[in-house]
Protein backbone atom coordinates (compact mmCIF):
# COMPACT_ATOMS: atom_id res chain seq x y z
CA UNK A 1 0.00 0.00 0.00
CA UNK A 2 1.47 3.29 -1.02
CA UNK A 3 1.03 6.68 0.53
CA UNK A 4 -1.43 6.89 3.39
CA UNK A 5 -2.73 3.89 5.25
CA UNK A 6 -5.60 5.92 6.65
CA UNK A 7 -6.63 9.43 5.75
CA UNK A 8 -9.55 11.20 7.37
CA UNK A 9 -10.57 14.66 6.20
CA UNK A 10 -13.19 16.95 7.71
CA UNK A 11 -15.12 14.04 9.24
CA UNK A 12 -18.34 14.88 11.10
CA UNK A 13 -20.82 12.76 12.96
CA UNK A 14 -24.10 13.93 14.43
CA UNK A 15 -26.16 11.51 16.53
CA UNK A 16 -29.89 12.05 16.42
CA UNK A 17 -31.66 15.14 15.10
CA UNK A 18 -33.38 18.30 16.28
CA UNK A 19 -33.10 19.35 19.94
CA UNK A 20 -31.48 16.14 21.11
CA UNK A 21 -28.85 16.03 18.36
CA UNK A 22 -25.28 15.43 19.56
CA UNK A 23 -22.37 16.53 17.42
CA UNK A 24 -19.95 13.83 18.49
CA UNK A 25 -17.43 14.59 15.72
CA UNK A 26 -17.12 18.14 14.40
CA UNK A 27 -13.84 18.36 12.54
CA UNK A 28 -11.64 15.29 12.47
CA UNK A 29 -8.51 15.24 10.36
CA UNK A 30 -6.07 12.42 10.71
CA UNK A 31 -3.50 10.41 8.77
CA UNK A 32 -1.81 7.17 9.69
CA UNK A 33 0.96 5.71 7.56
CA UNK A 34 1.25 2.01 6.81
CA UNK A 35 3.29 0.38 9.56
CA UNK A 36 2.63 3.23 11.96
CA UNK A 37 0.93 3.10 15.37
CA UNK A 38 -0.70 6.36 16.47
CA UNK A 39 -2.38 7.16 19.75
CA UNK A 40 -5.80 8.77 19.97
CA UNK A 41 -6.43 10.34 23.33
CA UNK A 42 -9.02 12.64 24.76
CA UNK A 43 -11.42 13.04 27.63
CA UNK A 44 -14.48 10.93 28.09
CA UNK A 45 -17.23 11.80 25.65
CA UNK A 46 -14.85 13.54 23.26
CA UNK A 47 -15.72 11.24 20.34
CA UNK A 48 -12.94 8.64 20.28
CA UNK A 49 -15.18 5.59 20.01
CA UNK A 50 -17.43 7.40 17.56
CA UNK A 51 -14.43 7.96 15.31
CA UNK A 52 -13.47 4.29 15.43
CA UNK A 53 -17.04 3.26 14.65
CA UNK A 54 -17.08 5.52 11.60
CA UNK A 55 -13.75 4.23 10.39
CA UNK A 56 -14.85 0.68 11.19
CA UNK A 57 -17.90 1.17 8.96
CA UNK A 58 -20.42 0.25 11.65
CA UNK A 59 -21.98 3.71 11.83
CA UNK A 60 -22.30 6.19 9.01
CA UNK A 61 -20.61 9.58 9.35
CA UNK A 62 -22.56 12.73 8.59
CA UNK A 63 -19.99 14.39 6.34
CA UNK A 64 -16.31 14.33 5.35
CA UNK A 65 -14.05 11.86 3.64
CA UNK A 66 -12.24 8.67 4.62
CA UNK A 67 -9.60 6.93 2.54
CA UNK A 68 -8.06 3.50 3.14
CA UNK A 69 -4.87 3.03 1.13
CA UNK A 70 -5.70 4.55 -2.22
CA UNK A 71 -9.43 3.85 -2.07
CA UNK A 72 -11.97 6.40 -0.89
CA UNK A 73 -14.43 4.51 1.25
CA UNK A 74 -16.54 7.46 2.37
CA UNK A 75 -17.10 10.83 0.79
CA UNK A 76 -20.37 12.28 1.99
CA UNK A 77 -21.72 8.72 1.59
CA UNK A 78 -20.34 5.21 1.45
CA UNK A 79 -18.32 4.54 -1.68
CA UNK A 80 -18.23 0.82 -1.01
CA UNK A 81 -21.19 -1.49 -1.43
CA UNK A 82 -20.23 -4.36 0.82
CA UNK A 83 -19.34 -2.94 4.23
CA UNK A 84 -19.25 -6.42 5.76
CA UNK A 85 -16.53 -7.49 3.34
CA UNK A 86 -14.72 -4.22 4.08
CA UNK A 87 -14.74 -4.96 7.79
CA UNK A 88 -13.82 -8.59 7.27
CA UNK A 89 -10.93 -8.12 4.85
CA UNK A 90 -9.50 -4.70 5.49
CA UNK A 91 -10.06 -3.73 9.11
CA UNK A 92 -8.92 -5.50 12.25
CA UNK A 93 -10.67 -4.73 15.53
CA UNK A 94 -9.24 -4.98 19.04
CA UNK A 95 -11.48 -4.06 21.94
CA UNK A 96 -11.11 -3.31 25.60
CA UNK A 97 -12.28 -6.84 26.35
CA UNK A 98 -11.07 -9.64 24.07
CA UNK A 99 -14.59 -10.79 23.10
CA UNK A 100 -13.39 -14.13 21.83
CA UNK A 101 -16.03 -16.60 20.66
CA UNK A 102 -16.35 -18.96 23.66
CA UNK A 103 -17.38 -22.03 21.68
CA UNK A 104 -14.39 -21.93 19.31
CA UNK A 105 -10.90 -22.88 20.38
CA UNK A 106 -8.11 -20.32 20.18
CA UNK A 107 -6.99 -21.38 16.71
CA UNK A 108 -10.47 -21.29 15.22
CA UNK A 109 -11.23 -17.93 16.83
CA UNK A 110 -8.50 -16.57 14.57
CA UNK A 111 -9.01 -18.89 11.61
CA UNK A 112 -12.69 -17.92 11.47
CA UNK A 113 -11.84 -14.65 9.71
CA UNK A 114 -9.94 -16.16 6.77
CA UNK A 115 -12.65 -18.83 6.62
CA UNK A 116 -15.36 -16.16 6.42
CA UNK A 117 -13.34 -14.61 3.60
CA UNK A 118 -13.53 -17.93 1.77
CA UNK A 119 -10.11 -19.39 2.53
CA UNK A 120 -9.96 -23.19 2.97
CA UNK A 121 -9.95 -24.40 6.58
CA UNK A 122 -6.41 -25.78 6.40
CA UNK A 123 -4.87 -22.57 5.10
CA UNK A 124 -6.91 -20.50 7.57
CA UNK A 125 -5.70 -22.58 10.51
CA UNK A 126 -2.12 -22.45 9.24
CA UNK A 127 -2.35 -18.68 9.21
CA UNK A 128 -3.82 -18.69 12.72
CA UNK A 129 -1.00 -20.86 14.06
CA UNK A 130 1.64 -18.57 12.52
CA UNK A 131 0.07 -15.58 14.21
CA UNK A 132 -0.22 -17.38 17.54
CA UNK A 133 3.47 -18.29 17.32
CA UNK A 134 4.37 -14.70 16.47
CA UNK A 135 2.41 -13.52 19.52
CA UNK A 136 3.92 -16.16 21.85
CA UNK A 137 0.66 -17.98 22.47
CA UNK A 138 1.36 -20.87 20.10
CA UNK A 139 1.36 -23.31 23.00
CA UNK A 140 -2.28 -22.42 23.78
CA UNK A 141 -3.49 -23.04 20.24
CA UNK A 142 -6.01 -25.76 21.16
CA UNK A 143 -7.19 -24.20 24.41
CA UNK A 144 -10.61 -22.67 24.90
CA UNK A 145 -10.67 -18.89 25.35
CA UNK A 146 -11.95 -19.26 28.92
CA UNK A 147 -8.80 -21.22 29.81
CA UNK A 148 -6.48 -18.33 28.92
CA UNK A 149 -5.20 -15.52 31.12
CA UNK A 150 -6.35 -11.97 30.39
CA UNK A 151 -3.09 -11.06 28.68
CA UNK A 152 -3.16 -14.23 26.59
CA UNK A 153 -6.74 -13.54 25.57
CA UNK A 154 -5.84 -10.05 24.47
CA UNK A 155 -2.96 -11.40 22.38
CA UNK A 156 -5.35 -13.86 20.75
CA UNK A 157 -7.69 -10.94 20.05
CA UNK A 158 -4.79 -9.10 18.37
CA UNK A 159 -4.01 -12.21 16.35
CA UNK A 160 -7.65 -12.29 15.25
CA UNK A 161 -7.45 -8.64 14.20
CA UNK A 162 -4.43 -9.51 12.07
CA UNK A 163 -5.86 -12.71 10.61
CA UNK A 164 -6.85 -11.35 7.21
CA UNK A 165 -3.77 -9.13 7.01
CA UNK A 166 -5.89 -5.98 7.05
CA UNK A 167 -4.23 -2.67 6.12
CA UNK A 168 -5.89 -1.09 9.18
CA UNK A 169 -6.22 -2.05 12.84
CA UNK A 170 -8.52 -0.13 15.17
CA UNK A 171 -7.93 -0.70 18.87
CA UNK A 172 -10.28 0.79 21.48
CA UNK A 173 -8.56 0.88 24.86
CA UNK A 174 -6.86 -2.48 24.27
CA UNK A 175 -4.79 -2.29 27.46
CA UNK A 176 -7.45 -1.12 29.90
CA UNK A 177 -7.83 -4.35 31.87
CA UNK A 178 -4.08 -5.17 31.88
CA UNK A 179 -1.31 -4.34 34.32
CA UNK A 180 1.46 -2.05 33.06
CA UNK A 181 3.81 -4.86 32.07
CA UNK A 182 1.16 -6.61 29.99
CA UNK A 183 -0.13 -3.31 28.65
CA UNK A 184 3.32 -2.43 27.35
CA UNK A 185 3.67 -5.93 25.92
CA UNK A 186 0.45 -5.43 23.93
CA UNK A 187 1.70 -2.12 22.51
CA UNK A 188 5.04 -3.71 21.67
CA UNK A 189 3.22 -6.45 19.81
CA UNK A 190 1.06 -3.95 17.95
CA UNK A 191 4.18 -2.03 16.92
CA UNK A 192 5.93 -5.18 15.79
CA UNK A 193 2.91 -6.42 13.83
CA UNK A 194 2.36 -2.99 12.27
CA UNK A 195 5.88 -3.01 10.93
CA UNK A 196 5.85 -6.65 9.93
CA UNK A 197 2.57 -6.46 8.02
CA UNK A 198 2.66 -2.78 7.04
CA UNK A 199 -0.52 -2.10 8.96
CA UNK A 200 -1.80 1.31 9.99
CA UNK A 201 -2.86 1.14 13.64
CA UNK A 202 -4.97 3.56 15.69
CA UNK A 203 -4.94 2.96 19.44
CA UNK A 204 -7.55 4.78 21.51
CA UNK A 205 -6.36 5.01 25.09
CA UNK A 206 -6.58 6.69 28.46
CA UNK A 207 -3.69 4.65 29.67
CA UNK A 208 -0.87 6.86 31.08
CA UNK A 209 1.52 3.89 30.94
CA UNK A 210 1.39 3.51 27.19
CA UNK A 211 0.94 7.12 26.04
CA UNK A 212 4.70 7.79 26.06
CA UNK A 213 5.27 4.95 23.59
CA UNK A 214 3.55 6.67 20.64
CA UNK A 215 5.60 8.70 18.17
CA UNK A 216 2.53 10.61 17.06
CA UNK A 217 -0.58 11.36 19.05
CA UNK A 218 -3.94 12.81 18.04
CA UNK A 219 -5.76 14.68 20.74
CA UNK A 220 -9.50 14.86 20.38
CA UNK A 221 -11.58 17.32 22.34
CA UNK A 222 -15.24 18.08 21.78
CA UNK A 223 -15.18 16.29 18.47
CA UNK A 224 -12.17 18.07 16.97
CA UNK A 225 -8.67 16.64 16.53
CA UNK A 226 -5.24 18.16 16.64
CA UNK A 227 -1.96 16.37 16.19
CA UNK A 228 1.14 16.46 18.33
CA UNK A 229 4.40 14.60 18.54
CA UNK A 230 4.74 11.87 21.14
CA UNK A 231 7.77 10.72 23.08
CA UNK A 232 8.12 7.57 21.01
CA UNK A 233 9.75 5.79 23.94
CA UNK A 234 11.23 2.40 23.17
CA UNK A 235 9.67 -0.47 25.09
CA UNK A 236 12.17 -2.73 26.76
CA UNK A 237 11.56 -6.49 26.39
Amino acid at each position, binding site marked *: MDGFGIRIEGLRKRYGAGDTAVDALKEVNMTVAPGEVVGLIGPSGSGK*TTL*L*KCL*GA*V*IEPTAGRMTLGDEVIYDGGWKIGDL*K*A*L*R*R*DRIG*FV*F*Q*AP*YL*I*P*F*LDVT*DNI*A*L*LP*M*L*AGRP*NGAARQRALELLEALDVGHRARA*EPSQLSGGEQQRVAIA*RALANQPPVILA*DEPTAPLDSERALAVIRILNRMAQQYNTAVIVVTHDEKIIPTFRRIYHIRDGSTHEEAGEGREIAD
Partner: protein
Amino acid sequence: MISLAGRDILHSWGKFVFTGVGLGLLIGATLTMAGVYRGMVDDARVLLSNSGADIWVVQKDTLGPYAEPSSLRDDAYRALRGMPGVARAANVTYLNMQVQAGGENASDVRVMVVGFEPGQPGEPAYLVAGRQITRSHYEAVADVRTGFRLGERIRIRRHDYTVVGLTRRMVSSGGDPMVFIPLKDAQEAQFLKDNDAIVNERARTAANPSLNRPGVPGLLEAIQASQTTSHSVNAVLVQVRAGHDAEAVAEPIRRWKHLEAYTRAQMEEILVAKLIATSAKQIGMFLAILAVVSAAIVAFIIYTMTLGKLREIAVLKLIGTRSRTIAGMILQQALGLGIIGFVVGKISSALWAPFFPKYILLEPGDALRSFVAVMVICAIASTLAIRAALRVDPATAIGG
Protein backbone atom coordinates in the same frame (compact mmCIF):
# COMPACT_ATOMS: atom_id res chain seq x y z
CA MET B 1 -15.74 -22.94 6.89
CA ILE B 2 -16.48 -24.58 10.20
CA SER B 3 -19.96 -25.19 11.53
CA LEU B 4 -20.57 -22.49 14.12
CA ALA B 5 -23.77 -24.21 15.23
CA GLY B 6 -22.01 -27.55 15.61
CA ARG B 7 -19.22 -26.01 17.65
CA ASP B 8 -21.66 -24.21 19.89
CA ILE B 9 -23.62 -27.44 20.44
CA LEU B 10 -20.42 -29.36 21.25
CA HIS B 11 -19.31 -26.60 23.59
CA SER B 12 -22.54 -26.54 25.58
CA TRP B 13 -23.66 -30.08 24.83
CA GLY B 14 -24.92 -30.60 28.38
CA LYS B 15 -27.49 -27.86 27.99
CA PHE B 16 -28.41 -29.11 24.53
CA VAL B 17 -28.79 -32.74 25.52
CA PHE B 18 -30.77 -31.78 28.59
CA THR B 19 -33.26 -29.62 26.74
CA GLY B 20 -33.23 -32.11 23.86
CA VAL B 21 -34.26 -34.88 26.23
CA GLY B 22 -37.05 -32.73 27.64
CA LEU B 23 -38.27 -31.96 24.16
CA GLY B 24 -37.79 -35.61 23.27
CA LEU B 25 -40.10 -36.83 26.01
CA LEU B 26 -42.72 -34.46 24.66
CA ILE B 27 -42.17 -35.80 21.16
CA GLY B 28 -42.34 -39.30 22.59
CA ALA B 29 -45.74 -38.47 24.05
CA THR B 30 -46.80 -37.17 20.64
CA LEU B 31 -45.63 -40.31 18.87
CA THR B 32 -47.42 -42.41 21.46
CA MET B 33 -50.66 -40.53 20.90
CA ALA B 34 -50.38 -41.24 17.19
CA GLY B 35 -49.57 -44.83 18.11
CA VAL B 36 -52.71 -45.06 20.25
CA TYR B 37 -54.81 -44.08 17.25
CA ARG B 38 -52.96 -46.43 14.91
CA GLY B 39 -53.33 -49.16 17.50
CA MET B 40 -57.08 -48.65 17.66
CA VAL B 41 -57.38 -48.85 13.89
CA ASP B 42 -55.14 -51.88 13.78
CA ASP B 43 -57.01 -53.58 16.61
CA ALA B 44 -60.20 -53.12 14.61
CA ARG B 45 -58.64 -54.58 11.46
CA VAL B 46 -57.09 -57.50 13.31
CA LEU B 47 -60.38 -58.16 15.08
CA LEU B 48 -62.13 -58.37 11.71
CA SER B 49 -59.40 -60.53 10.15
CA ASN B 50 -59.20 -62.89 13.08
CA SER B 51 -62.94 -63.37 13.28
CA GLY B 52 -62.62 -65.34 10.05
CA ALA B 53 -65.76 -63.86 8.53
CA ASP B 54 -66.44 -62.39 5.11
CA ILE B 55 -69.91 -61.14 5.98
CA TRP B 56 -71.42 -60.06 9.30
CA VAL B 57 -75.15 -60.68 9.43
CA VAL B 58 -76.86 -58.64 12.14
CA GLN B 59 -80.25 -57.34 13.22
CA LYS B 60 -81.93 -55.21 10.61
CA ASP B 61 -81.26 -51.44 10.76
CA THR B 62 -78.37 -51.78 13.19
CA LEU B 63 -74.65 -51.23 12.88
CA GLY B 64 -74.00 -54.32 15.01
CA PRO B 65 -72.49 -56.26 16.47
CA TYR B 66 -69.53 -54.06 17.53
CA ALA B 67 -70.83 -50.54 17.11
CA GLU B 68 -74.45 -51.09 18.12
CA PRO B 69 -76.36 -53.82 19.96
CA SER B 70 -77.81 -56.42 17.62
CA SER B 71 -80.01 -59.36 18.37
CA LEU B 72 -81.27 -62.06 16.02
CA ARG B 73 -82.74 -65.52 16.27
CA ASP B 74 -80.18 -68.23 16.71
CA ASP B 75 -81.72 -70.36 13.98
CA ALA B 76 -81.21 -67.70 11.30
CA TYR B 77 -77.86 -69.21 10.41
CA ARG B 78 -79.54 -72.35 9.07
CA ALA B 79 -81.34 -70.36 6.42
CA LEU B 80 -78.15 -68.48 5.62
CA ARG B 81 -76.25 -71.71 5.02
CA GLY B 82 -78.62 -72.45 2.20
CA MET B 83 -78.03 -69.12 0.43
CA PRO B 84 -75.96 -69.15 -2.77
CA GLY B 85 -72.24 -68.50 -2.24
CA VAL B 86 -72.30 -69.15 1.51
CA ALA B 87 -69.67 -71.66 2.59
CA ARG B 88 -70.18 -71.53 6.34
CA ALA B 89 -72.31 -69.56 8.76
CA ALA B 90 -72.10 -69.57 12.54
CA ASN B 91 -73.66 -67.77 15.50
CA VAL B 92 -71.66 -65.49 17.75
CA THR B 93 -72.46 -63.44 20.82
CA TYR B 94 -70.57 -60.52 22.28
CA LEU B 95 -70.92 -59.27 25.82
CA ASN B 96 -68.86 -56.73 27.71
CA MET B 97 -68.50 -57.56 31.35
CA GLN B 98 -66.27 -57.65 34.39
CA VAL B 99 -64.80 -61.08 34.90
CA GLN B 100 -63.46 -62.24 38.19
CA ALA B 101 -60.25 -64.20 38.07
CA GLY B 102 -60.20 -66.98 40.62
CA GLY B 103 -57.38 -67.76 42.99
CA GLU B 104 -55.61 -65.54 45.42
CA ASN B 105 -55.51 -62.39 43.27
CA ALA B 106 -59.24 -62.08 42.79
CA SER B 107 -59.12 -58.94 40.68
CA ASP B 108 -61.75 -57.80 38.22
CA VAL B 109 -60.81 -57.72 34.57
CA ARG B 110 -62.97 -55.95 32.03
CA VAL B 111 -63.34 -58.24 29.04
CA MET B 112 -65.55 -58.91 26.07
CA VAL B 113 -66.99 -62.39 26.34
CA VAL B 114 -67.39 -63.98 22.93
CA GLY B 115 -69.64 -66.97 22.45
CA PHE B 116 -68.77 -69.08 19.43
CA GLU B 117 -69.23 -72.55 18.06
CA PRO B 118 -65.92 -74.44 18.16
CA GLY B 119 -64.62 -75.15 14.69
CA GLN B 120 -66.79 -72.47 13.09
CA PRO B 121 -66.11 -68.85 12.06
CA GLY B 122 -65.65 -66.76 15.18
CA GLU B 123 -63.19 -69.14 16.73
CA PRO B 124 -59.96 -67.42 17.89
CA ALA B 125 -57.68 -67.50 14.86
CA TYR B 126 -54.55 -68.74 16.55
CA LEU B 127 -53.34 -69.60 19.99
CA VAL B 128 -50.10 -68.63 21.66
CA ALA B 129 -50.51 -71.29 24.34
CA GLY B 130 -52.80 -74.16 25.28
CA ARG B 131 -55.51 -75.53 23.01
CA GLN B 132 -58.84 -74.63 21.48
CA ILE B 133 -62.05 -75.38 23.36
CA THR B 134 -62.99 -79.06 23.01
CA ARG B 135 -65.73 -79.49 25.61
CA SER B 136 -69.08 -77.96 25.03
CA HIS B 137 -69.23 -76.22 28.41
CA TYR B 138 -67.16 -74.23 30.87
CA GLU B 139 -63.93 -73.92 28.97
CA ALA B 140 -62.47 -70.60 27.88
CA VAL B 141 -59.77 -69.21 25.59
CA ALA B 142 -58.55 -65.80 26.73
CA ASP B 143 -56.52 -63.02 25.15
CA VAL B 144 -53.15 -62.70 26.89
CA ARG B 145 -53.98 -59.09 27.75
CA THR B 146 -56.54 -60.33 30.26
CA GLY B 147 -53.63 -61.53 32.35
CA PHE B 148 -55.28 -64.93 32.81
CA ARG B 149 -53.01 -67.98 32.88
CA LEU B 150 -53.54 -71.44 31.50
CA GLY B 151 -55.51 -73.59 33.90
CA GLU B 152 -56.81 -70.59 35.79
CA ARG B 153 -60.45 -70.66 36.77
CA ILE B 154 -62.50 -67.59 36.01
CA ARG B 155 -66.07 -66.78 36.93
CA ILE B 156 -68.56 -65.56 34.32
CA ARG B 157 -71.99 -64.98 35.81
CA ARG B 158 -73.06 -68.14 37.53
CA HIS B 159 -70.39 -70.54 36.29
CA ASP B 160 -66.70 -71.14 36.58
CA TYR B 161 -64.65 -71.63 33.43
CA THR B 162 -61.19 -73.10 32.98
CA VAL B 163 -58.79 -71.21 30.76
CA VAL B 164 -57.51 -73.85 28.31
CA GLY B 165 -55.92 -71.62 25.67
CA LEU B 166 -54.44 -68.16 25.20
CA THR B 167 -54.72 -66.04 22.08
CA ARG B 168 -53.47 -62.55 21.29
CA ARG B 169 -54.51 -59.35 19.48
CA MET B 170 -58.18 -60.12 20.09
CA VAL B 171 -59.59 -57.00 21.70
CA SER B 172 -62.90 -55.22 21.30
CA SER B 173 -63.10 -51.78 19.75
CA GLY B 174 -63.25 -50.44 23.30
CA GLY B 175 -59.87 -52.03 23.98
CA ASP B 176 -61.18 -54.82 26.22
CA PRO B 177 -59.44 -58.18 25.71
CA MET B 178 -61.67 -61.04 24.64
CA VAL B 179 -62.57 -64.26 26.39
CA PHE B 180 -64.00 -66.99 24.17
CA ILE B 181 -66.47 -69.46 25.59
CA PRO B 182 -68.87 -71.96 24.00
CA LEU B 183 -71.92 -70.36 22.39
CA LYS B 184 -74.50 -72.04 24.61
CA ASP B 185 -72.74 -70.85 27.76
CA ALA B 186 -72.43 -67.37 26.36
CA GLN B 187 -76.10 -67.21 25.40
CA GLU B 188 -76.97 -68.20 28.89
CA ALA B 189 -74.64 -65.64 30.39
CA GLN B 190 -76.00 -62.94 28.15
CA PHE B 191 -79.74 -63.57 27.96
CA LEU B 192 -80.69 -65.65 30.95
CA LYS B 193 -82.09 -64.16 34.07
CA ASP B 194 -81.00 -65.07 37.55
CA ASN B 195 -82.88 -67.63 39.61
CA ASP B 196 -85.03 -65.15 41.50
CA ALA B 197 -86.12 -63.52 38.28
CA ILE B 198 -86.99 -66.92 36.80
CA VAL B 199 -89.07 -67.87 39.83
CA ASN B 200 -90.82 -64.52 39.63
CA GLU B 201 -91.44 -64.89 35.94
CA ARG B 202 -92.87 -68.40 36.39
CA ALA B 203 -95.18 -67.23 39.14
CA ARG B 204 -96.37 -64.37 36.97
CA THR B 205 -97.00 -66.71 34.03
CA ALA B 206 -98.83 -69.19 36.28
CA ALA B 207 -101.03 -66.36 37.58
CA ASN B 208 -102.08 -65.41 34.06
CA PRO B 209 -105.39 -67.27 33.40
CA SER B 210 -105.00 -67.21 29.65
CA LEU B 211 -101.65 -69.03 29.88
CA ASN B 212 -102.53 -71.34 32.78
CA ARG B 213 -105.68 -72.96 31.48
CA PRO B 214 -107.07 -75.74 33.57
CA GLY B 215 -108.20 -77.69 30.49
CA VAL B 216 -104.88 -77.68 28.68
CA PRO B 217 -102.32 -79.78 30.52
CA GLY B 218 -98.68 -79.09 29.71
CA LEU B 219 -99.29 -75.61 28.28
CA LEU B 220 -97.92 -73.77 31.30
CA GLU B 221 -94.79 -75.94 31.38
CA ALA B 222 -94.19 -75.39 27.67
CA ILE B 223 -94.49 -71.62 28.02
CA GLN B 224 -92.26 -71.54 31.06
CA ALA B 225 -89.64 -73.65 29.30
CA SER B 226 -89.63 -71.33 26.30
CA GLN B 227 -89.17 -68.37 28.60
CA THR B 228 -86.07 -69.78 30.19
CA THR B 229 -84.20 -70.85 27.06
CA SER B 230 -82.49 -68.26 24.97
CA HIS B 231 -82.78 -68.18 21.24
CA SER B 232 -80.86 -65.00 20.52
CA VAL B 233 -77.37 -64.29 19.23
CA ASN B 234 -75.70 -61.00 18.28
CA ALA B 235 -74.49 -61.84 14.83
CA VAL B 236 -73.99 -64.59 12.31
CA LEU B 237 -70.55 -64.77 10.78
CA VAL B 238 -70.63 -65.92 7.18
CA GLN B 239 -67.76 -67.29 5.12
CA VAL B 240 -68.13 -66.95 1.40
CA ARG B 241 -67.44 -69.82 -0.95
CA ALA B 242 -64.22 -69.42 -2.96
CA GLY B 243 -64.76 -67.44 -6.13
CA HIS B 244 -67.80 -65.60 -4.83
CA ASP B 245 -67.94 -61.87 -4.28
CA ALA B 246 -68.87 -60.96 -0.71
CA GLU B 247 -71.11 -58.08 -1.75
CA ALA B 248 -72.95 -60.33 -4.23
CA VAL B 249 -73.56 -62.82 -1.44
CA ALA B 250 -74.57 -60.16 1.08
CA GLU B 251 -77.12 -58.48 -1.17
CA PRO B 252 -79.72 -61.31 -1.23
CA ILE B 253 -79.33 -61.76 2.52
CA ARG B 254 -80.38 -58.16 3.03
CA ARG B 255 -83.24 -58.50 0.56
CA TRP B 256 -84.74 -61.84 1.53
CA LYS B 257 -83.84 -62.47 5.12
CA HIS B 258 -84.80 -59.08 6.56
CA LEU B 259 -81.37 -58.87 8.12
CA GLU B 260 -78.48 -56.49 7.74
CA ALA B 261 -75.32 -57.88 6.13
CA TYR B 262 -72.00 -56.10 6.13
CA THR B 263 -69.00 -57.09 4.08
CA ARG B 264 -65.49 -56.82 5.43
CA ALA B 265 -64.97 -53.39 3.85
CA GLN B 266 -68.26 -52.06 5.23
CA MET B 267 -67.48 -53.42 8.68
CA GLU B 268 -64.07 -51.77 8.63
CA GLU B 269 -65.74 -48.52 7.65
CA ILE B 270 -68.11 -48.83 10.61
CA LEU B 271 -65.34 -49.59 13.07
CA VAL B 272 -62.74 -47.11 11.87
CA ALA B 273 -64.81 -44.23 10.54
CA LYS B 274 -67.74 -44.34 12.96
CA LEU B 275 -66.84 -46.12 16.14
CA ILE B 276 -63.42 -44.61 16.79
CA ALA B 277 -63.97 -41.32 14.99
CA THR B 278 -64.49 -39.39 18.21
CA SER B 279 -61.40 -40.88 19.78
CA ALA B 280 -59.47 -39.99 16.64
CA LYS B 281 -60.61 -36.37 16.87
CA GLN B 282 -59.69 -36.35 20.54
CA ILE B 283 -56.22 -37.60 19.70
CA GLY B 284 -55.88 -35.16 16.82
CA MET B 285 -56.68 -32.31 19.18
CA PHE B 286 -54.10 -33.59 21.60
CA LEU B 287 -51.49 -33.85 18.84
CA ALA B 288 -52.17 -30.26 17.83
CA ILE B 289 -51.67 -29.06 21.41
CA LEU B 290 -48.48 -31.08 21.80
CA ALA B 291 -47.16 -29.61 18.55
CA VAL B 292 -47.85 -26.07 19.77
CA VAL B 293 -46.26 -26.79 23.15
CA SER B 294 -43.17 -28.30 21.48
CA ALA B 295 -42.89 -25.28 19.20
CA ALA B 296 -43.17 -22.94 22.17
CA ILE B 297 -40.47 -24.83 24.06
CA VAL B 298 -38.07 -24.86 21.11
CA ALA B 299 -38.73 -21.20 20.43
CA PHE B 300 -38.19 -20.27 24.06
CA ILE B 301 -35.01 -22.31 24.44
CA ILE B 302 -33.43 -21.15 21.19
CA TYR B 303 -34.44 -17.59 21.96
CA THR B 304 -32.86 -17.56 25.41
CA MET B 305 -29.76 -19.32 24.09
CA THR B 306 -29.46 -16.63 21.44
CA LEU B 307 -29.99 -13.81 23.94
CA GLY B 308 -27.10 -15.28 25.91
CA LYS B 309 -24.90 -14.94 22.84
CA LEU B 310 -25.75 -11.43 21.68
CA ARG B 311 -22.27 -10.17 22.49
CA GLU B 312 -20.66 -12.92 20.40
CA ILE B 313 -23.15 -12.31 17.62
CA ALA B 314 -22.27 -8.60 17.62
CA VAL B 315 -18.58 -9.53 17.35
CA LEU B 316 -19.32 -12.00 14.55
CA LYS B 317 -21.22 -9.30 12.68
CA LEU B 318 -18.49 -6.76 13.30
CA ILE B 319 -15.83 -9.00 11.81
CA GLY B 320 -17.98 -9.38 8.73
CA THR B 321 -20.05 -12.54 9.24
CA ARG B 322 -22.98 -12.57 6.83
CA SER B 323 -26.49 -12.39 8.23
CA ARG B 324 -27.33 -15.66 6.52
CA THR B 325 -24.40 -17.37 8.28
CA ILE B 326 -25.71 -16.16 11.63
CA ALA B 327 -29.30 -17.09 10.79
CA GLY B 328 -28.01 -20.46 9.59
CA MET B 329 -26.20 -21.00 12.88
CA ILE B 330 -29.37 -20.44 14.90
CA LEU B 331 -31.51 -22.47 12.51
CA GLN B 332 -29.06 -25.39 12.67
CA GLN B 333 -29.11 -25.26 16.45
CA ALA B 334 -32.88 -25.40 16.46
CA LEU B 335 -32.81 -28.31 14.03
CA GLY B 336 -30.10 -29.99 16.12
CA LEU B 337 -32.33 -29.68 19.14
CA GLY B 338 -35.14 -31.14 17.06
CA ILE B 339 -33.01 -34.11 15.98
CA ILE B 340 -31.94 -34.86 19.55
CA GLY B 341 -35.57 -34.51 20.61
CA PHE B 342 -36.81 -36.76 17.85
CA VAL B 343 -34.28 -39.51 18.59
CA VAL B 344 -35.10 -39.36 22.30
CA GLY B 345 -38.80 -39.31 21.51
CA LYS B 346 -38.55 -42.28 19.16
CA ILE B 347 -36.61 -44.34 21.68
CA SER B 348 -38.74 -43.38 24.67
CA SER B 349 -42.02 -44.07 22.87
CA ALA B 350 -40.74 -47.51 21.82
CA LEU B 351 -39.66 -48.18 25.40
CA TRP B 352 -42.88 -47.25 27.13
CA ALA B 353 -45.37 -48.42 24.48
CA PRO B 354 -45.56 -52.03 25.79
CA PHE B 355 -46.65 -50.80 29.20
CA PHE B 356 -49.79 -49.15 27.88
CA PRO B 357 -53.02 -51.07 28.51
CA LYS B 358 -54.10 -50.65 24.90
CA TYR B 359 -52.14 -51.72 21.86
CA ILE B 360 -49.87 -48.98 20.53
CA LEU B 361 -48.78 -49.20 16.93
CA LEU B 362 -45.74 -47.04 16.11
CA GLU B 363 -45.71 -46.82 12.34
CA PRO B 364 -42.47 -45.89 10.53
CA GLY B 365 -44.56 -43.62 8.31
CA ASP B 366 -45.82 -41.72 11.34
CA ALA B 367 -42.28 -41.44 12.63
CA LEU B 368 -41.16 -40.00 9.31
CA ARG B 369 -44.05 -37.55 9.24
CA SER B 370 -43.43 -36.44 12.79
CA PHE B 371 -39.72 -36.03 12.02
CA VAL B 372 -40.61 -33.67 9.19
CA ALA B 373 -43.11 -31.92 11.47
CA VAL B 374 -40.49 -31.55 14.23
CA MET B 375 -38.01 -30.07 11.76
CA VAL B 376 -40.60 -27.63 10.41
CA ILE B 377 -41.69 -26.67 13.93
CA CYS B 378 -38.06 -26.12 14.98
CA ALA B 379 -37.39 -24.02 11.90
CA ILE B 380 -40.45 -21.88 12.57
CA ALA B 381 -39.60 -21.63 16.26
CA SER B 382 -36.09 -20.39 15.46
CA THR B 383 -37.37 -17.38 13.53
CA LEU B 384 -37.94 -15.45 16.74
CA ALA B 385 -34.32 -15.95 17.79
CA ILE B 386 -33.06 -15.23 14.28
CA ARG B 387 -34.92 -11.92 14.24
CA ALA B 388 -33.35 -10.99 17.57
CA ALA B 389 -29.90 -11.90 16.29
CA LEU B 390 -30.27 -9.99 13.04
CA ARG B 391 -31.33 -6.88 14.95
CA VAL B 392 -28.06 -6.85 16.89
CA ASP B 393 -26.01 -3.79 16.00
CA PRO B 394 -22.37 -4.69 15.24
CA ALA B 395 -21.42 -1.31 16.75
CA THR B 396 -22.31 -2.68 20.19
CA ALA B 397 -19.27 -4.97 19.92
CA ILE B 398 -17.02 -1.90 19.94
CA GLY B 399 -18.80 -0.67 23.03
CA GLY B 400 -18.44 2.90 24.32
